[in-house]
């Protein structure tokens, strides 16, 4: 059924409105209004007697179309019980131009390539300065702990060691165990061809202790705790909790950031030791099941394969990774301003950057260890 019907009535025009004039019929009404050919002058009678449940939106659209059609030359009269909102809308319709003039969210000018480069450079400069400042503030707080041990916040530190370390033990153990089983299995398949089964032990022990144990742990912790740091601190920023702390003369870096980073620096090496142990256990299990190397022989070979530094070459990286993860997470959390969307964006960024930095640092360590023959 049509929502509009235009008829000639003597000198005048009669516009019969019928059907559903609530928001539900808006699409149809809008379409028919746009197709309405005229009139552009004279008298138009709007007959409301067949319009059901006329809503604000459709009436607004009708008034707008009538104003577009004739402007002041078209005299409009409403009959047949027009909706009670008509008066209000007619009044608003007088200012229609102003009301609809809303700038569509002031689009920024399209940046040229040079502009983009400049903006990117400035942004990176700001970012570098921000990171440096953040690092400095953390260092200041750490420096104060020598003269003022209370600044270390032992209870908070303990809670974060528990949350980032102890609760991560099951997942870290499981993943280290499974990955080293997979590595040992793949290695065994290749090495049996040369009859060099026993070198699976070398592969697993050196691989796990030097690289995989610490790297896997760091990546898991970056996903678990890096995101948690960013989200926790970010929500506190949104709730103005950090502002409240500052207003009470307390330093949010000291209260929120340093305990988290230190806790991670304690927890990550310990987790790495557990991951190393579980990785060796996984390799040993596969060796005995698949290659029939008994545990005694595995241990004997393990002692031969390892140089004294192998274990430490892995472990020494853990605190560095912990600092990277903790600082990126806390820094991104402190950057949250204004909205929930920011929180999600910065938490994601914290995890991605933490993992990237961990892998980059790992590569640098590899080069360094080769150079110093560690």
């Amino acid at each position, binding site marked *: 059924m049509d929502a509009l019907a235009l008829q000639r009535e003597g000198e005048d025009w009669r516009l019969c409105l019928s059907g559903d004039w609530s928001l539900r019929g808006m699409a149809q009404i*809008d379409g028919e209004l746009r197709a309405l050919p005229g009139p552009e002058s004279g008298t138009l009678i709007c007959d409301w007697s067949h319009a059901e449940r006329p809503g604000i939106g459709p009436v607004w659209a009708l008034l707008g179309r009538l104003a577009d059609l004739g402007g002041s030359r078209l005299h409009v009269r409403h009959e047949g019980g027009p909706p*009670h909102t008509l008066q209000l*809308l007619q009044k608003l319709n007088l200012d229609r131009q102003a009301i609809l003039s809303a700038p569509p969210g002031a689009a920024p000018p399209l940046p040229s390539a040079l502009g983009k480069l400049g903006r990117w450079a400035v942004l990176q400069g700001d970012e570098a300065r921000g990171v440096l400042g953040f690092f400095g503030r953390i260092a200041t707080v750490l420096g104060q702990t020598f003269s003022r041990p209370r600044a270390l916040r032992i209870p908070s530190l303990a809670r974060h060691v528990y949350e980032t370390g102890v609760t991560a033990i099951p997942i870290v153990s499981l993943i280290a165990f499974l990955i080293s089983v997979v590595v040992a299995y793949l290695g065994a398949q290749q090495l049996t061809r040369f009859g060099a089964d026993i070198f699976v032990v070398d592969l697993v022990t050196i691989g796990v202790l030097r690289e995989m144990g610490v790297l896997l742990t760091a990546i898991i912790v970056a996903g678990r705790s890096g995101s948690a740091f960013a989200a926790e601190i970010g929500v506190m920023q949104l709730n103005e909790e950090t502002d409240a702390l500052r207003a009470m003369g307390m330093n949010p870096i000291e209260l929120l950031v340093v305990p988290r980073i230190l806790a991670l620096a304690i927890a990550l090496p310990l987790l790495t030791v557990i991951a190393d142990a579980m990785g060796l256990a996984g390799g040993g299990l596969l060796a005995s099941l698949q290659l029939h190397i008994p545990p005694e022989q595995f241990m004997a070979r393990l002692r031969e394969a390892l140089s004294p530094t192998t274990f430490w070459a892995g472990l020494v990286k853990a605190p560095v990774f912990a600092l990277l993860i903790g600082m990126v997470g806390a820094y991104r959390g402190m950057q949250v301003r204004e909205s929930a969307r920011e929180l999600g964006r910065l938490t994601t960024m914290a995890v991605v950057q933490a993992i990237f930095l961990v892998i980059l640092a790992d590569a640098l360590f590899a080069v360094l260890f080769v150079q110093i023959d560690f």
Partner: protein
Amino acid sequence: MDDPAQPVIRVHGLVSRFGAQVVHNGLDLEVRQNEIFGIVGGSGAGKSVLLHTILGLRRPQAGTVQVYGKNLQELTRPEQLAMAQSYGVTFQSGALISSLSVAQNIQLPLREYYSMPEQALDELAALNVALVGLTPDAAGKYPAQLSGGMVKRAALARALSLEPKLLFLDEPTSGLDPISAAAFDELLLYLHAELHLTVVMITHDLDSLLRTCNRIGVIVDGRMITDTLEGIMQNQHPWIREYFHGPRARAAENAARG
């Protein structure tokens, strides 16, 4: 549904409990067609719990809640949807979606429930922005860029976008300066008169209560005492006496009498 004699909302024998803590204990409430009904109560008296129950966001432990004569607990899923579209709500802190501009916030329910061309959506958003007395340029702004008073108005614009006949306001003037709060009261009265709305308003703002509400329900001891403004003023319950005749109340009354 539009029978004027029929109360819009009827709550009977409502019981709400959180563990051992009883918030409502046999609460009765009737909201009539086309009135502004104010809900008052101390902190923790269960005003917001009552609102959530009437909105169907929370199931009561006992009692019935009827909106437009329909029992909320017996609604099917499509009926629940239709019910949700028939009322507008503003929440205490505005609850505008922070990643959308004001215009997009207003269009959000429209896009969800109706299909209409983009231009019609823009015109409707502009209309709603004008209805609540915001300037046209507010439409393109994001919630974080708005002042407290503008957030409340934008939230009202979103609540009005589906053209409801029933409007719930949770502390609409809290956190506003007296001038903005008074302006909001006037806006509410204006929209109430022009759009024939039934309004249920939770408020702590005595000025607002005295200026806008026809009837007032006070939640005390888990029940509701409902009366007209004059009736409530004469009530002898100690909490109500304290509330409406304390030092702050006297100032508000004097101001209202002018």
